[in-house]
């Protein structure tokens, strides 16, 4: 297992009282928990992944995501079981939409 921690500057997302969870820690899948963070223009991401040595890939996927989506003011925790970058991006979008209060 590898633990990775990142911080990205990102436009603030409308703050939400509740947390959002989506996905399952199953093969090729991951779960993402979005909670309110303490810095409004920063997205903090903490990852536990079963696949070692993909830090640069995670950084690239998350940097793209936090640039294209307003995700500032959140703390995102991820438990990963070998999800591909495409699955990670889709799940992030899903989790953030749920955090903002949208359906899925």
């Amino acid at each position, binding site marked *: 297992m590898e633990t990775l921690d990142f911080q990205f500057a990102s436009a603030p997302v409308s703050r939400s009282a509740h*947390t959002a*969870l989506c996905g399952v*820690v199953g093969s090729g899948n991951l*779960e993402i*928990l979005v909670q309110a963070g303490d810095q409004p223009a920063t997205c903090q991401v903490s990852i536990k992944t079963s696949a070692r040595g993909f830090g640069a890939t995670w950084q690239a996927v998350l940097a793209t995501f936090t640039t294209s989506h307003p995700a500032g003011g959140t703390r995102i925790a991820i438990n990963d079981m070998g999800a591909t970058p495409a699955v990670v991006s889709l799940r992030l979008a899903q989790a953030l939409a749920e955090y903002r209060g949208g359906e899925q």
Partner: protein
Amino acid sequence: MSQALVARKSWFEATARARLGGLLDAGSLQEILPPGEAQPSPHLAALDLPGAFDDGVVIGRATLAGRPVLFAAQEGQFMGGAVGEIHGAKIVGLLRRAVQEKPAAVLFLIDSGGVRLHEANAGLIAISEIMRAVLDARAAGVPVLALVGGSCGAFGGMGIVAKLCSAILISEEGRLALSGPEVIETVAGVEEFDSKDRALVWRVTGGKHRYLMGDCAGLVDDDIAAFRLAASEFLAGWQEAEPSLGELRASQRRLEDRLAAYGALRDGLQVWAALGVAQPESVPMLDRDSLVALKEGLPT
């Protein structure tokens, strides 16, 4: 019929949280120890494996058709729904709460291969604590209803737990047994049981077989709404009986008779023939309603 198929939402394919969303009254679900508040498994972390925020089980309270219920739903996609220390402690805590709060029922959405082997003794102890807690809840008059229809079925210790519940509602896709097919094949050889033969696995452990044998109170379509309807109908007509030694002895006798009648048979097909099914080979293709009609027509 075709409209029903279009609207159908598969229980088998859904996650634990999606099952709960469709099973319980909309907006009534209150999770206890939600992700972020509970601790993930320390044993998996010690083995350098990523855990899940809820350790593979969602517990809480809700209403079902207006009646207050407590629920526990196992997530089969996380480590095969296997029971670790925290996973087990959450279920035990919920069942103990049921003894105090006396809800109309505890709904137990089982989807598990049994003990989480990574957690060894902690997992085994967790299973035995769940067994005791299920019996304590029932002795306090709270029905515990098992719902089985997930990809992992109910195997190992969770197979025992399922049979300790007041009743089981199962889908054709659901499976219920003690040792899993691959365990039997590994221990006793492929001549004893071929775990790759999926049709055989379902003929021996699947929902239709369990229903025909009388192990499950109801056979349900693989549809979240069908589970909801079956669970609320079952609870409306169910009163938890006082535990009695006489009933235990009678049930022991039923099991002995069953072993004598079917113990030497090798396949569900042979068992169904012995039960009086005229065309046992047609059973796997029957839909739910036809199978229920078939069972009702069987000699008792």
